[in-house]
Every structure is written in structure tokens, then in C-alpha cells.
């Protein structure tokens, strides 16, 4: 019999909810079958922790005396976008200081940027705030140089437009004589390593492949606090090829997520530097999946060996949009430490932390089991495989 969100929330309030992690669900469904598991289990928790470049934060720092309509702003010398009223800013995860040497010499180290500013705010560290303005009759002030601390901000909201990718590429470098430096890490020449970036069987969207329970209003574990899914993420691409289990064979769905940074923990919001590429923000996300019926039990029992990713050459396929993937490989093989490409053993590394994903799924499980976290029923589900929505490349047109 199907369960409802409100029935599950009533059980959470009563302390009778049965909640397991997506790892634990695998064994339950293997042992008892999806029907029995669906009767027994109410919620499956997921988790993922990795670099999520399309992240950022809105902050409102309050009005100075005299007032100022900030038009240019820097947080620890990193540009923040100020084209929003007078005292609101948006700081993007991949923004760099104007003084950063970037990729000169190559590969650049990218020691500090927007992701680190957000990490410093969450950690409660003071951030230097410089701003300039042209001045108006109602906002006369033109210069500002002070310190901000998250506790003094009116609002500080993490607002990430594309997180928690449902599956991702496995990156390699087929170039014969040049190592490359990418957002997927350092890739050694001649297919000498392969990097992946997904929590696989613990990843939120891989446990609900058709987004039957994840949508606008889904309450999530975000950076150690609570947040929400507020929209499909940008580049949400539900119509990619899928396996018989419904799992996309390449990057597909994405989430736009929002939450109060003041609740979050610096362990789960971490600025990162990607050699030769730039800066980003590691974000921890956990999504609870209600086991409404046997189909959801089956979906949440997906395991690494049943999820495959495409092997993409980041010296050619990816940057130049040329050629075909070098093959496909499952996450159990990727996690074993070595895969085979063109008959050659290739050691594997990753950008996404599996131990941290386990920790998130376990923490969310504990919060639900102890009545501290309730499910949010989505107002609207995300566009699914039948939506016809797909990712479009840019079509360039001649100008002038």
C-alpha cells in the first residue's frame, strides 16, 4: 500500500519512523525484495560531498551611515556582484581576486576565491569588505572599507543554481605528451589516470532517477543545516539515455538548492583550489527519499555496479566537443582503484568524497530518526524523462 508524506511525518513525530541509508537499503531489498522493504522502510537517506562550481551566496550587510548604494564590492579582494539594490551582494564560488595570477605561470594555484570567502563566512571568520559607489542624493556615501562577520549580516543565504549532478563524466587525458589540469583534477598524459566525481549509490538523484519525490520544496540537508530544493538546477537534462533501472548513463538531472548559511558548518562548506583550473566550493547535500511504494524501494536499492558513467577524454572530447566517449564504466569498478581502458589498466581517483557522503547520509538518518528533521512535500516535481526537456549547446550567430 502506498504511503503519503504526512503519514511518514507523523511517524517521525512519534519516533516510530524506519529510516535507513541508501547503502543499507541495498541489502534490505536484496534480502526481502522491494515489496517487503517498502512496507518496512519509510525513508532512505542519501548524501554527496564534492566541488559544486555553480554555487554562491546572497548577503545583506545592512545600511551604513550615511547610506551607500554599493556599485562595486570586494570580499577579501574577491569581486562580489552588487547590481542588486543598495546593500545586497552575491558572491559566486568561482570568482577570483583581480590580483590573482590565474594561469600565469601554468598551472595556476588559485589559492583563494569566492568559494573560500563563503567558507570563511561559514567558519565565522571576519571578511574584509571594500566597496565603492558613485553617490546619489539618497545614498551619498562613495567609499567603504570595513569587516563583515556572518553573525552581523541581516541575511546570508547559500543559493546554488546547479548542484548534486545525477551522474557525471569519468575524466581521462588521452594526449600523448602533455598532462592537463582540469576541474576534474590533474589528468596525466597517455591515459595514466581516471578521475570520477559522484557518490554513486549514495548520490541523491541516482536514488530517485525519475524525480518521483524530489522537487520544488523538498527539504534537504545542506551544508550541515537545513535547506530546500527551489528549482531544477541549470542544465537539468532528464532526457539522456537511461539503463533498464532508469539510471541515466551520463550527467542528467541537477538541483538548485537554497539554505541559511548561518546554520551551516565549515566542515560541509569548503572552499577548494583546483590546480590550473580555478576555485570552487565543496558542498555537502543530503536528500531524504520517502519510500512511497515498492518502486521507490527498488530505485533506492541501486548499487554502484548498476550505475555507469561515460569515460571522456578531457584533452579533446570535452574541451573541443569532438569525438565520442572512450567507453563506459560502473562505479564499483571505479571505486576498486583501477579500471581498464583500451586494454590498459588505469588507476582511478575522485573529486567527490565517498566517506563524507556516508557521513551525511548517516547524519540525516539520525536527525529523522530522532524527530529533528521532517520531510517537505514538493509543490512541483522536477521535469522528468517524459518532459522533452534537454540540454542545448550555444548556437552562435554572425554579428554585424
Amino acid at each position, binding site marked *: 500500500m502506498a504511503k503519503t508524506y504526512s503519514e511518514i511525518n507523523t511517524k517521525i513525530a512519534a519516533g516510530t519512523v524506519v529510516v535507513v541509508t541508501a547503502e543499507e537499503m541495498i541489502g534490505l531489498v536484496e534480502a526481502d525484495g522491494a515489496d517487503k522493504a517498502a512496507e518496512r522502510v519509510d525513508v532512505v537517506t542519501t548524501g554527496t*560531498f*564534492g*566541488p559544486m562550481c555553480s554555487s554562491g551566496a546572497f548577503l545583506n550587510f545592512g545600511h551604513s551611515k550615511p547610506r551607500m548604494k554599493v556599485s562595486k564590492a570586494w570580499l577579501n579582494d574577491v569581486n562580489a556582484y552588487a547590481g542588486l539594490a543598495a546593500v545586497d551582494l552575491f558572491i559566486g564560488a568561482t570568482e577570483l581576486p583581480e590580483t590573482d595570477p590565474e594561469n600565469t605561470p601554468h*598551472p595556476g*594555484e588559485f*589559492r583563494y576565491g569566492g568559494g573560500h570567502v563563503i567558507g570563511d563566512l561559514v567558519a565565522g571568520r571576519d571578511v574584509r569588505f571594500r566597496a565603492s559607489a558613485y553617490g546619489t542624493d539618497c545614498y551619498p556615501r562613495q567609499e567603504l572599507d570595513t569587516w563583515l562577520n556572518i553573525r552581523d549580516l541581516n541575511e546570508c543565504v547559500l543559493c546554488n543554481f546547479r548542484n548534486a549532478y545525477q551522474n557525471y563524466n569519468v575524466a581521462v587525458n588521452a594526449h600523448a605528451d602533455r598532462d592537463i589540469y582540469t576541474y576534474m*583534477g*590533474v589528468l*596525466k598524459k597517455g591515459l*595514466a*589516470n*581516471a*578521475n570520477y566525481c559522484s557518490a554513486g549509490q549514495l548520490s541523491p538523484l541516482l536514488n530517485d532517477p525519475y524525480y518521483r519525490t524530489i522537487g520544488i520544496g523538498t527539504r534537504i540537508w545542506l551544508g550541515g543545516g537545513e535547506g530546500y530544493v527551489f528549482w531544477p538546477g541549470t542544465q537539468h537534462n532528464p532526457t539522456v539515455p537511461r539503463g533498464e533501472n532508469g539510471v541515466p548513463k551520463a550527467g542528467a538531472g541537477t538541483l538548485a538548492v537554497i539554505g541559511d548559511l548561518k546554520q551551516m558548518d565549515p566542515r560541509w562548506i*569548503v*572552499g*577548494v*583550489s*583546483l*590546480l590550473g583550473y580555478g576555485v*570552487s566550493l*565543496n558542498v555537502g547535500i543530503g536528500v531524504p527519499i520517502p519510500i512511497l511504494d515498492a518502486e521507490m524501494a527498488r530505485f533506492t536499492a541501486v548499487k554502484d555496479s548498476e550505475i555507469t558513467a561515460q569515460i571522456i577524454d578531457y584533452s579533446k572530447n570535452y574541451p573541443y566537443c569532438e569525438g565520442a566517449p572512450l567507453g563506459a564504466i560502473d562505479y564499483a569498478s571505479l*571505486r*576498486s*582503484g583501477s579500471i581498464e581502458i583500451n586494454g590498459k589498466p588505469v*588507476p*582511478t*581517483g*575522485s*573529486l*567527490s*568524497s*565517498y*566517506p*563524507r557522503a*556516508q557521513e551525511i547520509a548517516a547524519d540525516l538518518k539520525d536527525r529523522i530518526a530522532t524527530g529533528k528533521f521532517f520531510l517537505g512535500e514538493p509543490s512541483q516535481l522536477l521535469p522528468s524523462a517524459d518532459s522533452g526537456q534537454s540540454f542545448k549547446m550555444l548556437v552562435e550567430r554572425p554579428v554585424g
Partner: protein
Amino acid sequence: MAERKVVFHYPSRLLETPIVSTLVRDFNLGFNILRANVTPGAEGLVVLGLEGSPEDLDRGLAWVEAQGVSVQPLNKDVIRVDEKCTECGACLTLCPTAALWRDPATQRVEFDADKCIACEICVPACPPRAMQVSF
């Protein structure tokens, strides 16, 4: 007598060249192999403790470099700042001695400091910069 710890990085074309025996015969140096990792067709890596007079050590190491072997002095440590490490695994395939490795059973990323040769490749490649040089 002086002792120096060094790391030799061999390009694959020199794997057959008798580097260490030449150091003994022609430069009067004693040696103690602390670690060796030579894969046919790929790079070789040998960590050595060399003994001899300071002049012989200088001459010998200059000769080794002239053969095309990169010589790295081993006089500092790389440490992992555990609070910063997120155990992602971006370092795993870059570490030449597998001092950084993943336990397949737990998926935890481990660091064996005694296997580390302080080549520092992991330092800028670590996204949260948990690997740091300690002098």
C-alpha cells in the same frame, strides 16, 4: 664522510642504465636503497641514502643529473592536515609511492607518512590544500 638522502626520478629510457653501480665504482659512494619503484615502460623512482665525501657526493650527483635523471633532495616532510582533508581522492593517482591510498573496503583515504618521499606533487593538487610542506 657525509650522508645525503635523495630521490632519483628516472625517465623510462634510462631504466637500463647502471646509475647506482657507477656511483659506487667511479665516485666512491656507498648507498642504501630506502625505496624503489620501477615499472617497465614507465618512470622509475628510487630513494637512496648516499655516503661519501662531500666532494664525491657533489660530483656524483652532478653526473647523475647529467645522465637525465632528476635528483630531488629529501630534506623536508609533507604532512596531511587531517582537519582539512575531505578524503576526496584527487591525490591518489598522483602520488608516485602510493603513500596516499584508498582502502577499498572503507573508501577512506589514508596517508602513510613513512612511504612519502616529499616530492610535493600532492601539495598544489589537493583541492582543500590539506597536504602541506613542513621544513
